[in-house]
């Protein structure tokens, strides 16, 4: 006897959906597509060729000066003479913090991945805020490491700058995202706290 509609199990429904090309067949692919769209939006906002002295340019410049100041404070652990002057870190080695140094691509990636993930909005907001802080801290550490490499092993600076630490910060961003997913899943699987007896 053929199964009635009410007897179809969720698994059978998904299987049928898979055969019929239903988008539900590939939730992970659909999720990746949403991440790509969100990243495109963030990238459009961050990297749009704004006119000079416009508000976004001023805001990004301010952020770069902030990154330089925090990084210089961190670099002083290794070189007491290091100082930030605007977006330049000066000391035994000199570095200018430009747009590429701000890890905005990593921030955009994390924000996009977290914001479109199927979790509660409170968890997503917390994920973006905490994740952004972690990625920013990793970036400050990256700049400090670059400073030390520039002072001690200047010939290795290009490889470390353009390849090693770029890969490292992207992998760190993926790790932060993975850690956030683990936290969200653990919260979902945790047993609900029973209501207190009257």
């Amino acid at each position, binding site marked *: 006897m053929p199964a009635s509609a009410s007897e179809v199990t969720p698994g*059978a429904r998904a299987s049928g959906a898979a055969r019929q090309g239903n988008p539900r067949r590939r*939730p992970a692919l659909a999720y990746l597509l949403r991440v790509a769209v969100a990243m495109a939006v963030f990238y459009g906002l961050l990297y*749009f060729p704004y006119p000079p002295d416009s508000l976004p340019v001023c805001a990004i410049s301010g952020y770069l000066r902030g990154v330089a100041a925090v990084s210089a404070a961190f670099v002083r652990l290794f070189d007491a003479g290091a100082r930030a002057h605007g977006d330049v870190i000066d000391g035994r080695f000199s570095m200018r913090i430009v747009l590429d140094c701000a890890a905005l691509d990593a921030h955009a990636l994390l924000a996009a991945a977290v914001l479109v993930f199927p979790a509660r909005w409170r968890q997503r907001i917390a994920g973006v805020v905490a994740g952004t802080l972690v990625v920013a801290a990793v970036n400050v550490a990256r700049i400090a490491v670059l400073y030390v490499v520039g002072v001690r092993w200047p010939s290795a600076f290009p490889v470390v700058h353009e390849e090693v630490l770029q890969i490292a910060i992207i992998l760190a961003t993926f790790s932060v995202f993975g850690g956030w997913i683990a936290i969200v899943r653990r919260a979902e699987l945790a047993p609900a706290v029973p209501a207190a007896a009257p």
Partner: protein
Amino acid sequence: MTWSIRRAAVSLSVFLALLVAGAWPWLPVQRGFSAMYCPLANLVLAPQTFGWGGHARLVPLSRIERRPGDNVTADAVVALTVFGWEGDLQMGTSLRRDVYLPLWILIALLIAVPLPFARRMKALAIGVPIMILLDLAALELRVTWTFAFQLRGIYAADAGSVWRRLVDLAYGALLTPPGNRFIAPLGVGAAIIAWSREPRLGLDSSPGCNEDVTSGV
């Protein structure tokens, strides 16, 4: 398939080991890759005409160095020529950074993730050409942007045209962020893995759905 902590740790270790081994800056590998990739890229790049008489070729360098005026340690140059003009404009480029490393990241990822052999081979057969196509598209965009914004007379200098704005935005958003070249292979790899099999990412809260999707693997 359930991603236990142990399995994830093994996959991560394999990925990192492969990454370090393949990304080590061996000069012969870098030279060999450049010599191999340039003719391939030129199959697409060389026959094209950009704007009014602009042409481009990718030329491998036998000496890997940071040349004056370049902001990378170049293993190849993009040589731009314009019909009717002598000489060329050479822009140093690091194929190791822009092509080889992203490709290697993708390969390491697809080897490290636990997949049956046949699916792994299929994933590599799909992923590697996609990455090469993305790299060629990036090269095409770089050449187009250079002709449009760094040289005069190749494209109409109408700064307000939608096309120029789009090229500028695409260049700024896709080629300027240094992390993109390493995000792309991880994104492509994730998409291929997701296409190949649905890992339990908690993307669908319906228990039956996840069980069904993974049981056929």
